[in-house]
């Protein structure tokens, strides 16, 4: 809501600039979106009086005007507006002036005729199209007849006022009005504020004889109407139009403008009906019936919902209550009798109706937050008074009241001790009670206790904590001391799980992978790739896009998206890991379980080409090395084994292994299937994904010291031919099992399956290291063990030792 600085100053004696006032409001009550002064940036724009006008010889729509701008000689200005006429006072941008959007106006010629400046429409000096009175939307604006030529136009149009744009939080509906804002400012600046009371002059017949209202008070706790007869519709006086357009509302006519003005002033939305268009003399406040329709003021048709509150006459709905009036009973040319409605509608109904019909109006915004329920009649009276004063209306005697449940003010007890204990302050009783009183609350002090009667307009204050906020903000947050919590000590330590998760990240970073954070919401197809177990996908009920519609059940597909993003930007070497959750859901349940996973993906190379080395493209074994090193870091207790898996549809069937710890599958690693790479538009990519939760839960080895043997080790190399389907794992397992007591390690140092070995065979070569921790090994003992194991290899695996 945009609130006028000048308007505020009519009530409070403030000696502050608009920006400083805005800053104060922001620091003390609600956020401020900005401060604007409409005349800012404009230059040399004055009142002109059109002395004469003639048609342009070479144009059928241009006029040549002689305009008095308060100088000795009139200016000749060519103007194309259809509504320009001699005798008008108009807005003139002089040569050398600056109009909206920083446009400079110079002397020029229009179709050969010299033109010294420009006659302006309101839009041309910065008015938004939707606040310009309808009459002037398609032409120039005509200033009042008493304007003085040569004067700057700004004051005539209210453009020197500053508008403070309040961004009101949902709890502070009271700030959506001048009066509400004044109450806050009175407290902030510690000044008394006197608000004017309406003084309505009634005459004519009693309203009760002309109108009856029937109200469901659950829907509308207060419903009041006044009737004003013989109104003369006309444009509002300038001061009123200015208030409206500066606040962002289009002036329409005096009756409608008055309702908008009162809403701005009191925060109470009003609606003006054309009484003569009612079917009958009864008005009903009820919910809509099935099948009812309404055409609202903005000429849109609405199918009403049975939860919509409507105002209806004997026949049909005539307004969507608290949101927008209906077209059929709206104020139009010819309206003479006005029924003014001032009411309170149940906020939840209004909120939903505004959402349902996508009609978020000034009225609905206020009813959603709650209006000042103690001021409903005042606003109604003030509007009636203005219709009498500005539209010559005769206010009929009395108010017809359908419901009048004015809530009791909240009464809250709070102690000074509590205030200081929670705020950390040392405020005195006088300070606290003064703050509360300056907000317009009644305070009774009894010992340490303050009994506070809260003003009804502050419908956000119910409990002592609410009062604490009032005290704190008016006292000033800057004045609060800054301390740290004291009291009982607590230890801040990471849990084992958290430590392992950090260790996981550090380990993988050490191994060359960058941490990625990808989207957990993905497409239905990607969510279901690289599945490590069966699960139902979890869909969002109303996703924003199909790209982010389903919860991921793997981390790898997100990394492939990342690689694709890099690849599309010509970054071909990408090495990423991600630690994040996957979401598995059992059929028949709503809520998925969440499992921590760790995944990695490398495309291109980890070791890019350099002047002294060729690039080494990533391969299965490099990825396996990374996984192995990571698992070693995590010290899982149990053998880690890799078992071929040809059955994952997204993985290369010959280059994929399950990762097992102590025989339990915790994940997989390998090359993604070439078709999947093609689908993601990426090059060959190697990935792994492990169930991190499983790793967290596994028993771990602890670091321990092992004596380093002083006795020399003896090594023996063995090379053998085996069938192609004999695996390294088989050979190593056999050597380890049969290698004897002193075998320390077995290390593969060569694999060869080229032309020098028979078809169907391959050559494997290992170094066996023997050592005795307690004495020097005898060569004979080693030879004996070595021969034994060689024999075993021949017998059990059909190896030919070479």
């Amino acid at each position, binding site marked *: 809501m945009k609130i006028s600085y000048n308007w505020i100053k009519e009530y409070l004696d403030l000696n502050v600039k608009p920006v400083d006032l805005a800053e104060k409001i922001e620091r003390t009550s609600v956020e401020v979106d900005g401060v604007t002064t409409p005349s800012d940036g404009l230059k040399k724009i004055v009142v002109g009086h059109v002395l004469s006008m003639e048609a342009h010889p070479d144009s059928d729509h241009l006029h040549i005007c002689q305009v008095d701008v308060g100088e000795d000689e009139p200016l000749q200005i060519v103007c194309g507006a259809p509504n320009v006429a001699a005798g008008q006072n108009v807005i003139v941008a002089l040569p050398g002036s600056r109009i909206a959007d920083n446009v400079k106006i110079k002397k020029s010629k229009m179709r050969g005729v010299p033109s010294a400046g420009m006659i302006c429409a309101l839009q041309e000096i910065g008015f938004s199209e939707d606040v310009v009175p309808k009459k002037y939307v398609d032409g120039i604006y005509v200033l009042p007849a008493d304007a003085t030529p040569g004067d700057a136009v700004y004051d005539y149009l209210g453009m020197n006022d500053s508008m403070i744009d309040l961004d009101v939080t949902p709890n502070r509906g009271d700030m959506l009005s001048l009066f509400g804002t004044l109450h806050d400012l009175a407290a902030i600046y510690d000044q008394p504020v006197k608000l004017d009371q309406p003084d309505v002059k009634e005459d004519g017949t009693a309203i009760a004889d002309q109108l009856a209202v029937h109200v469901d008070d659950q829907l509308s706790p207060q419903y009041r109407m006044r009737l004003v007869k013989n109104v003369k519709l006309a444009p509002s006086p300038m001061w009123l139009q200015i208030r409206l357009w500066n606040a962002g509302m289009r002036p329409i006519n005096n009756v409608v403008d008055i309702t908008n003005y009162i809403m701005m002033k009191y925060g109470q939305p009003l609606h003006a009906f054309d009484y003569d268009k009612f079917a009958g003399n009864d008005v009903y406040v009820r919910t809509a019936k099935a099948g009812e329709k309404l055409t609202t003021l903005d000429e849109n048709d609405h199918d009403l919902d049975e939860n919509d509150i409507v105002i209806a006459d004997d026949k049909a709905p005539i307004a969507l209550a608290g949101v927008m009036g209906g077209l059929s009973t709206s104020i139009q040319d010819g309206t003479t009798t006005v029924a003014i409605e001032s009411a309170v509608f149940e906020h939840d109904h209004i*909120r939903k109706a505004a959402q349902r019909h996508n009609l978020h109006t000034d009225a609905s915004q206020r009813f959603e937050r709650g209006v000042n329920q103690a001021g409903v009649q005042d606003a109604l009276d003030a509007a009636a008074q203005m219709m009498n004063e500005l539209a010559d209306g005769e206010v009929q005697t009395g108010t017809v009241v359908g419901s009048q449940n004015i809530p009791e003010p909240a009464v809250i007890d709070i102690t000074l001790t509590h205030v200081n204990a929670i705020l950390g302050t040392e405020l005195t009783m006088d300070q606290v009670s003064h703050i509360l009183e300056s907000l317009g609350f009644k305070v009774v002090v009894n010992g340490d206790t303050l009994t506070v009667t809260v003003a009804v307009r502050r419908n956000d204050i119910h409990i002592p904590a609410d009062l604490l906020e009032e005290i704190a903000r008016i006292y000033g947050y800057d004045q609060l001391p800054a301390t740290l919590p004291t009291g009982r000590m607590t230890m*801040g330590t990471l849990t084992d799980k958290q430590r392992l998760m950090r260790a996981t990240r550090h380990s993988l970073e050490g191994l060359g992978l960058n941490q990625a954070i990808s989207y957990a919401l993905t497409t239905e197809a990607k969510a279901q790739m690289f599945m490590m177990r069966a699960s139902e996908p979890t869909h969002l009920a109303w996703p924003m896009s199909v790209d982010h519609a389903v919860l991921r059940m793997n981390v790898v597909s997100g990394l492939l998206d990342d690689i694709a993003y890099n690849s599309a930007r010509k970054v071909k070497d990408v090495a990423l890991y991600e630690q994040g959750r996957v979401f598995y859901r059992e059929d028949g349940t709503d809520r998925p379980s969440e499992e921590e996973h760790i995944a990695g993906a490398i495309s291109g190379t980890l*070791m890019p080409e350099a002047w002294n080395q060729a690039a080494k493209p990533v391969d299965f074994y490099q990825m396996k090395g990374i996984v192995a090193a990571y698992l070693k870091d995590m010290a899982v207790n149990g053998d880690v084994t890799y078992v071929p898996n040809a059955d994952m549809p997204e993985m290369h069937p010959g280059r994929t292994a399950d990762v097992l710890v102590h025989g339990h599958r915790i994940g997989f690693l390998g090359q993604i299937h070439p078709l999947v790479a093609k689908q993601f538009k990426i090059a060959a990519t190697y990935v792994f994904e492990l169930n991190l939760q499983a790793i967290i839960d596994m028993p771990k080895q602890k670091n321990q010291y092992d004596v380093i043997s002083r006795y020399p080790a003896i090594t023996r190399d063995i090379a053998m031919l085996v069938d192609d389907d004999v695996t390294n794992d088989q050979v190593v397992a056999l050597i380890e099992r049969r290698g004897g007591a002193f075998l320390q390690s077995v290390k593969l140092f060569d694999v060869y399956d080229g032309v020098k070995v028979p078809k169907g065979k391959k050559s494997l070569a290992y170094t066996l290291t023997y050592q005795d921790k307690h004495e020097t090994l005898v060569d004979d003992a080693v030879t004996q063990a070595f021969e034994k194991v060689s024999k075993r290899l021949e017998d059990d695996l059909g190896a030919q030792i070479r």
Partner: protein
Amino acid sequence: MSLKDKLSELRQRGLADIKKSSDLKDVNQVRVQLLGKKGPITEVLRGMRDLDAEERPKVGAFANEIRDDLTAALTQRKEELEQAVLNAQLAKETIDVTLPGTPVAKGEPHVIQQIVDQIEDLFLGMGYQVLSGPEVEEDKYNFEMMNLPKNHPARDMQDTFYITKEILMRTQTSPMQARTLEKHDFSKGPLKMISPGVVYRRDTDDPTHSHQFHQVEGLVIDKHITMADLKGTLQVLAHELFGDKFDVRLRPSYFPFTEPSVEADITCFNCGGKGCKVCKNTGWIEVLGAGMVHPNVLKMAGVDPDVYGGFAFGVGPDRFAMLKYGVDDIRNFYLNDVRFLTQFTKKG
């Protein structure tokens, strides 16, 4: 020629030969020649038999002296030549040290992770626990127990991804507050926790909005926690993340789960508080929301608000990273361009 003269001459000639020798092989030859078993000195010494018993020791001493001199000269010459060989070899081995070093594969933590870790470490140091909750939450914990009953207007402030009517993607990490409050045994001590994690909002992704981002909620509940403690804690956080020069100010705000509620601004990074475009000339930038925990939140979690109370705050690491490093598009955090990920590597 006397033996002595012979020896003197031998010395002269020997020293000259040593000097002339040009490589280690030469030196060795000269050594064998001069001091070997068939060399002249041995020969001279052999001739001592013919001398007087009186002369013999003198000549012997002299011969030894000469032998020592020659040995020393040989050693010195050998060292000189070895040094020369070594120098030549080192010269030959000289490389261009300005050529680039061999690349090393090295990964980096994500910039948001870095900020989360920094916040975690700060609060661990102040005795807080780190707790992480489910990303798929119940409406009850995400909203209702945070004092946001169904139909609460403030729910409109947070567009939510629902899965079913009761199950949703958490919009904040505060549900962990409710979950922890429910379980915490206050007789064992105060509750001091932070909960970092990913949260989701039903937003269209653009430079300033992301449907996925991060949050760190903090909560302290005890018997004597004040709003001044909140202010001090936020100040420590700002100093840790941005530096001592950064100041914190509080402004009133509204969150259903806190009362009083505040928004915290910190000194503008860009202008240091003087006022600029980034801070809309205010000198301040809004960075987080906080407040004193609403009594309803405590009550709903079974904690007596007349005895216990405290503060809560919520910070957005994404926003911090954007402000701290001037990142102009939040989507950068989730698209993982390697050229982006590897910019935040400075650890010194």
